């Protein structure tokens, strides 16, 4: 049987459309020919991958159709649901149960929203426990119990919001306020910006105004420029610079003193959060000094320690393993302090290090800002080449963390050369530009690899006896890139991280989940 005869029959077999005569012909061939069987396995694998990956071809359709648990795996889903609670309490595992990686890869998220939570100061949200600085403001009604928040709408409008507030961003040019105090700065490009309240609408014609909306009344204060007030069922009114007006819920105008000072302004706001942030940075910096003395620390690079943007990156641990910065440019760190992080997006960027010694368990830890994952492999830390006993720590282009220690040389037919611990996808494009704490613990004693993001366990892999490596060696390595760009395909050769790192550490030994959570609490901006 020639290939041209055989392979179409294999496809028919897999598709379930083979005739009886052809089936027996193919079966006879497969019994004697290992090549025919190999072709069968390859085509079967291809079909399986096609089923899971073809959803990515047309992304606008895939988001509606793909779910993390297809119905056919409902039994497994049920099992996972029953035990999810037990798991979270036992191991702090969260998302790893709910995903089959290939399905998640197919469900590519689309960022939705009209505004970003640019900054906040002790803002407490109802039903939005994870809403944080840099996040898109979720659509639908929102409640802020207390605190201050600065929203940046995509139209350029800046809103400062004081809790307690209930509101909704309807579009880049419109918001509803049910309750609460807001101050709006409207640039020329966004004139016509509208705020809807229960008693009427405010339309901006100028630059800055403030509103205090309560169930009883809406107070308007024009700080600069002009607004139009469109009360329900009444003639519109103009208000300009220095004017104020109260409109009661029953539809009557009343006078109210012009008191812009009762609203937090941008300058006050900035001052408040900048000082808070500087305090947090200082606290982290104090803690970093202590951390450098941790006896388990193999190498520690809090990046502000570099020598004034010379190309040397100072090791703050006691090992003195200074790194050399190549091509990477300086960037703002996670507190916004410029020059205190390294940006690895310029081609060839890396920090070269050489780390001697042998270690049993190891912990890799960093704070990184990922701008995009456009490489097939996006490096966090890679040893040169990939020799025996060496770790590789990187991020796949679908957002999964990758960690491996090479166990043996790849010999065809003898199985894998290492165990790769993948996490579920932990990054998608909506997180572009956000700082994340990423850590991976390779624990030889427990034979596990555990991935952490922002202080929480996202997955744990068991490593069998066959693949565990009890002597980890590092040697020459790069932070943020890989040292051996290879021939041919740029997808494989380029691995620099499109993003920035402002703190990087390698510990000998395995840090506990609580230690990593504590580092997160102390280090979060």
């Amino acid at each position, binding site marked *: 049987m020639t290939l041209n005869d055989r*392979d*179409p029959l294999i*496809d028919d*077999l897999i598709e*379930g*459309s*083979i005739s*009886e005569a052809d089936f027996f012909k193919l*079966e006879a061939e*497969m*019994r004697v020919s290992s090549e025919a069987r190999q072709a*069968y*396995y*390859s*085509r*079967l*694998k*291809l*079909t*399986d*991958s*096609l*089923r*899971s*990956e*073809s*959803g*990515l*071809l047309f992304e606008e359709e895939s988001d509606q159709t793909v779910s993390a648990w297809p119905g056919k*795996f409902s*039994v*497994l889903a049920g*099992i*996972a649901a029953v*035990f999810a609670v*037990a798991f979270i309490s*036992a*191991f702090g595992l969260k998302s*790893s*149960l709910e995903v*089959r*990686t290939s399905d998640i*890869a197919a469900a590519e998220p689309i960022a939705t929203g009209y505004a970003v939570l640019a900054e906040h100061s002790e803002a407490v949200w109802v039903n939005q426990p994870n809403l944080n600085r840099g996040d898109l403001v979720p659509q639908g009604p929102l409640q802020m119990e207390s605190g201050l928040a600065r929203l940046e709408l995509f139209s350029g409008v800046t809103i400062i919001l004081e809790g307690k507030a209930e509101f909704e961003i309807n579009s880049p040019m419109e918001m509803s306020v049910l309750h609460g105090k807001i101050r709006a700065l409207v640039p020329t490009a966004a004139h016509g910006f509208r705020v809807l309240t229960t008693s009427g609408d405010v339309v901006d014609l100028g630059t800055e105004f403030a509103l205090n909306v309560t169930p009883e009344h809406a107070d308007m204060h024009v700080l600069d420029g002009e607004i139009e007030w469109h009360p329900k069922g009444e003639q519109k009114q103009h208000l300009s610079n220095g004017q104020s007006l109260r409109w009661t819920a029953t539809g009557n105008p009343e006078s109210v003193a012009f008191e812009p000072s009762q609203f937090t302004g941008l300058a006050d706001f900035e001052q408040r959060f900048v000082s808070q942030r500087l305090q947090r940075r200082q606290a982290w910096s104090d803690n970093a000094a202590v951390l450098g003395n941790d006896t388990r620390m193999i190498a520690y690079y809090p990046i502000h320690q570099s020598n004034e943007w010379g190309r040397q990156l100072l090791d703050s641990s006691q090992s003195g393993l200074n790194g050399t910065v190549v091509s990477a440019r300086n960037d703002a760190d996670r507190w916004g302090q410029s020059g205190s992080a390294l940006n690895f997006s310029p081609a060839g960027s890396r920090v070269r290090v050489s780390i001697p010694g042998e270690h049993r368990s190891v912990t890799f830890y960093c704070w990184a800002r990922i701008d995009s994952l456009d490489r097939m492999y996006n490096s966090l830390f890679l040893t040169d080449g*990939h020799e025996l006993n060496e770790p590789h720590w990187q991020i796949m*282009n679908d957002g999964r963390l990758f960690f*491996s220690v090479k166990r043996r040389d*790849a010999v065809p037919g003898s199985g*894998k050369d290492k165990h*790769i611990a993948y996490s579920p996808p932990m990054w998608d494009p909506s997180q572009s530009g956000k700082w994340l704490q990423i850590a991976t613990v390779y624990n030889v004693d427990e*034979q596990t690899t555990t991935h952490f993001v922002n202080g929480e366990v996202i997955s744990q*892999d*068991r490593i*069998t006896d066959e693949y565990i490596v009890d002597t980890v060696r590092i040697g020459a390595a790069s932070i943020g890139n890989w040292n*051996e760009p*290879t021939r*041919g*395909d740029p*997808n*494989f*050769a380029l691995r620099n991280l499109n993003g920035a790192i402002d703190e990087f550490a390698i510990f000998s030994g395995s840090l506990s989940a609580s230690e990593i959570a504590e580092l997160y609490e102390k280090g979060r901006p």
Partner: protein
Amino acid sequence: MEEQKQNAAIVSLLTQNQSALRLYVESLMPGDPHCDDVAQDTNTIIWEKRNDFEIGTNFKAWAFSIARFQVRKYRFKQAKDARLVFCDELEEIIAEEMSNHLQDLSEHHIALQACLKSLKPSDRDLIHHRYFKKTPLKEYAAKMGRSIGGLKVTLHRIRNRLLLCVERRIALAKEAQV
């Protein structure tokens, strides 16, 4: 606590090996629309027998042996209208060889993602309908004004092209020593 740990480990292993398990079942009963049912039954049995599994031993081998048994059980039930089934000898070989074939499925998926992008738009559309939307070939042929035979040939050629591309990419990745 011990039981919880065991359960956690099993769910995690079961989740990790879901694709491989499904594919293993399919290799033993290609083209059979009940592959998913058998894979699901296998999940159930694995779960029921979870306490028999010794953590640290080869989960895949254990799960595959259960899957193989489930395939046979399904055959037995279907015996009356069983049509095209591999003979025992070939099934034995496939069961053995296939388990070695099911490593690094994720590498395969990633390589394929890139390869799909290199297809021309009409081929991508065909693949999308065939494997994602699961449009019957007949319906698609009518819509596109093509013959079923012609579409089958096109599909076969696209598969050949993708296979070459995936193999090349995986080989390159191996050379690059991940």
